C-alpha cells in the first residue's frame, strides 16, 4: 500500500499489509527457562533437507548434548538429546507440520543435573572458516525463523557467487511473536558475536541488522553493544507485514530485488534470522549443540503469555501447562504466527528447532466468515509484496488451471497470506495457492 512515510524514510518495500501486531502480550516479558519436562520428543526431521538418521536404540542412556541422529549428507542436520535420560522409543509421532514422522522419545532423568559434559562444540577462537562451518553443522544449527534451513549450507555459498553483505533478520513481522525481539533486547552481545562468526565464515566485511521500528528497545540495545571493530549497522525498518520475508528485507535494506527463482546469494547477500544468529553464538559459548530454543507462547487463549527457553522436543502440552494452561475459550493453536503459522490439533506434538512460537487464538476461525464472490476490487494486487495478481491466480485456482498459474508466477508466491488478509470477500486466496503449489509439485513429479 502506498504510504508517504515509507516513501520519505525509505527502509521499506512496496505493498504489504498492516495487521494488528498484538505483541503487547509478551514484548516486555523477560525470557524464562522452563523446567525439564518428563519426556522430550525429537523428530528426525527438524530442518529443510534430508531427515537425520537415528544412531541410538531404545534403552540407551543419553546425556544432554549427545548426538541421537546423524546428518544424512550435506543438506541435513544432526539431532541432539535435549535432556539426559533414556531412549524410550523410536517410532511414529505427530509432527508440527501436520504429518506423522519418525521421532526419538527420551524419558528425561529426573535426577540428572542436566549439566553438559566437557564441551562438544569446539572453541571458536582459532578456527578456520571451513572448520567453523563444520562445527556449525555438527552442532545441528538450523534457521530458527521457521523454515529451519541448515545454517552451515548458508555459510557455504558456491564458489561462483560473491557474498558481500550479511543481513540479520530482526524484523519479526508476524503478529504476536516476540522471540527475536526478546533475544535482541536480552542477549544483544550474542547477536553481535553470532554476526562475527558468520562474517568470518562467509568472508564478508559488512553486516546490517534490520529491525522493525516497533522494537525501539531492541534497536537501542543492539546499537549500544555493537563492537567497534566490525562494520555492523543497525537499521530501523518500516513496520509492515511481511517485512521479515527474505526478499522484502533485502529490498528494504539494499534496494535490490532478488530475481524471480533465485536466492539471496545471487544478489550477494546472506540473510540469517536474529534468533538463529544468537544460537550460533550460544553453541560456541556453551560448547553444547542446539538443544534448546526461545519460544513465545502467547495469544488470548493462553493464561500466562510467556517467552520461554524450552528444551527442543518439549511437548506442546508441557509448554502450555507451564504457561498456566489454555483459556476456556481457546479455539485454535498455531505453531508460528497467525499469518503463516501451522494449526495444531494434537497436544503431544513437540516444539522443534523451527518453532518460533505457539499462538493460541479464541473466537471464530476463518472458515466461519461469510464468503462473497470476487468483486475485482484489486485490493489483493495492492497487498501482494511480490506484485502477483492474486485475483487472477484465485480464478485459475478455482478452475484447477494449475499450469496457467505457474505461468503467472505462482512459484514466486511466498504464501505470506497478505492477499487473504485483505480480501473483503473473504476468498481464501493464499490457502488456494498452497493447494495449487502442492498439485503442481505432484504434476511436475509425474512429468519428470
Amino acid at each position, binding site marked *: 500500500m502506498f504510504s508517504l512515510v515509507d516513501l520519505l524514510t525509505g527502509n521499506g518495500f512496496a505493498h504489504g499489509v498492516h*495487521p494488528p501486531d498484538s505483541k503487547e502480550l509478551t514484548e516486555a516479558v523477560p525470557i524464562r527457562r522452563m523446567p525439564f519436562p518428563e519426556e522430550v520428543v525429537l523428530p528426525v526431521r527438524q530442518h529443510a533437507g534430508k531427515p537425520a538418521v537415528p544412531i541410538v536404540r531404545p534403552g540407551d542412556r543419553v546425556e544432554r548434548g549427545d548426538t541421537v541422529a546423524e546428518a544424512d549428507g550435506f543438506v541435513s542436520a544432526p539431532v541432539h538429546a535435549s535432556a539426559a535420560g533414556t531412549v524410550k522409543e523410536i517410532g511414529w509421532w505427530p509432527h508440527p507440520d501436520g504429518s506423522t514422522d519418525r521421532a526419538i522419545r527420551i524419558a528425561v532423568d529426573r535426577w540428572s543435573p542436566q549439566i553438559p559434559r566437557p564441551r562438544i562444540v569446539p572453541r571458536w577462537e582459532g578456527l578456520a572458516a571451513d572448520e567453523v562451518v563444520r562445527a556449525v553443522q555438527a552442532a545441528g544449527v538450523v534457521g530458527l525463523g521457521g523454515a529451519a534451513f541448515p545454517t552451515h549450507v548458508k555459510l557455504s555459498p558456491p564458489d561462483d557467487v560473491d557474498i558481500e553483505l550479511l543481513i540479520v533478520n530482526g524484523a519479526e513481522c508476524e*503478529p504476536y511473536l516476540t522471540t527475536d525481539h526478546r533475544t535482541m533486547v536480552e542477549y544483544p552481545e550474542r547477536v553481535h558475536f553470532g554476526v562475527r562468526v558468520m562474517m568470518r565464515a562467509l568472508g564478508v566485511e559488512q553486516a546490517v541488522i534490520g529491525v522493525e521500528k516497533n522494537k525501539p528497545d531492541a534497536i537501542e540495545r543492539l546499537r549500544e553493544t555493537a563492537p567497534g571493530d566490525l562494520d555492523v549497522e543497525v537499521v530501523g525498518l518500516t513496520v509492515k507485514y511481511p517485512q521479515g520475508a527474505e*526478499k522484502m528485507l533485502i*529490498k528494504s535494506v539494499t534496494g535490490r*530485488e532478488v*530475481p*524471480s*527463482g*533465485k536466492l539471496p546469494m545471487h544478489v550477494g547477500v546472506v540473510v540469517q534470522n536474529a534468533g538463529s544468529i544468537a544460537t550460533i553464538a550460544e553453541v560456541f559459548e556453551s560448547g553444547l549443540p542446539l538443544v534448546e530454543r526461545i519460544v513465545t507462547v502467547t495469544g488470548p487463549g493462553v493464561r500466562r503469555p510467556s517467552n520461554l527457553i524450552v528444551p527442543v522436543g518439549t511437548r506442546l502440552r508441557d509448554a*502450555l501447562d507451564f504457561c498456566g*494452561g*489454555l483459556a476456556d475459550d481457546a*479455539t*485454535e*493453536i498455531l505453531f*508460528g504466527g*497467525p*499469518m*503463516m*503459522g501451522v*494449526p495444531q*490439533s494434537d*497436544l503431544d506434538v513437540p516444539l522443534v528447532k523451527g518453532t518460533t512460537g505457539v499462538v493460541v*487464538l479464541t473466537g471464530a*476461525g*476463518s*472458515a466461519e*466468515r*461469510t464468503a*462473497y*464472490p470476487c*468483486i*475485482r*476490487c484489486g485490493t489483493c*494486487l495492492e497487498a*501482494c*509484496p*511480490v*506484485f*502477483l*495478481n492474486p*485475483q*487472477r491466480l484465485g480464478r485459475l485456482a478455482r478452475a484447477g488451471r494449475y499450469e*496457467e498459474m505457474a*505461468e503467472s*508466477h505462482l512459484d*514466486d508466491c511466498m*504464501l505470506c*497470506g*497478505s492477499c*487473504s*488478509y*485483505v480480501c*473483503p*470477500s*473473504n476468498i*481464501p486466496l*493464499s*490457502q488456494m495457492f*498452497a493447494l495449487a503449489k502442492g498439485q503442481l509439485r505432484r504434476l511436475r513429479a509425474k512429468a519428470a
Partner: protein
Amino acid sequence: MSEARFELTASPRLKAPDSTARIMWTVSATLAPATLAAAWLFGAGVLLVVAAAILGAAATERLFEGAGTLSDGSAVLTGLLLGLTLPPGFPLWMSALGGAAAIGFGKAIFGGLGQNVFNPALLGRAFLQAAFPTAITTWAPVGPGGDAVRGDLFAFPFTTPEAADAVTGATPLGLMKFEGVATDAVPLLLGNTTGSLGETSAVLILAGGAYLAVKRYLDWRIPAAIFLTVALVSGALHAIDPGSPGPLFSLLSGGLVLGAVYMATDPVTSPVTKPGAWIFGIGIGLLVVLIRVWGGLPEGVMYAILFMNALVPFIGRATQPRVFGTAGEEGAA
C-alpha cells in the same frame, strides 16, 4: 484439555475488517446526501422513483439468486444508482422495470455478482433509454421541493404517460447542444438545474466520492483520469472553437460527476491494475467529449462507460503487474 476441539484452518488466520457487504452498504450510504438533495430540489416524489428502482432490482436479485445475496448490498446499490440517473418525474413502473432489467440483464445472466461485464445500473438505464425514449428525456424543472410530486410518477403500468410539456425543461447539456446556451458553473455545482435526479449536485457526489477514496473503497485514479481527460480535451476544443463547451461546463454538467465517481469505479466492471485504471478513465473521458460534441445525443457518459466496460478484459491483459524480481513481461488476462 481435550484434543478434539481445536480448529484446523489454513493460515492466515487474521483478516482485515473490511467486507464486500460493508463496502456495498457504505457506498450506498454515501449516496444518501445526493438523494436527499434531489428530494429537496425536485420534490419528495423522486424518493419514490429511487425506491421503485431499488425495489425492482432487489426483487429480481431475490428471484435469481435467492435471499442470500441480498444482504451483500450490491443489488440495492445497483437500484439506487439507476434511480439516481432517472428524470425526477419518471413513471414508477418504468423505474421498477429498469431496476429489474439492471439485475436481470446486467448481472444475473452473467452469473451474478462479480461476473458481469457491464455496469448493471447503466445497463438498466440503457434498457430504459431504448424502451422509453420520451419518458427518459422528459425533465421536470427544478422548483420548490417539499412534498411536491411531479411528472407522471403514477402512470399506470404499460401506458405511455402524457407528455406534460408545460412542466418540462431542457437540461444544461440539451441547452448547450441544441440552443448553444451555457449554464453557469454555480448552479451546476449545487445541483439546482434540470437533469437526472441524482446527477445534478456535483458537490455532494464529489464529497461522497472523496470519502470512499480515502477509505480505499474506490480507485481515485479512475475519476481523476476521467476529469483530467475531459477538462483537457474540452479545453482544447473550446480554445479552437469558443462555441463548444468549456472545461468547467463539461466537467459539471450532465452525469459526468456521478458517472465518473460512482459508475466507472464499480470494481467489477473496471480494471484491477493501476495503469489499467488510468487507461480506462482516459478512454471514458475521450468518449464522453466525443459523443457530446460530435454525437447525436447531448449526453454520452452512459455509453462511454459501457463501451469501456467491454474493453476491461483487454486492458487487464495489457497491464498485468511486473512480478517482483523480474523485468516485467506480457501476462495473459
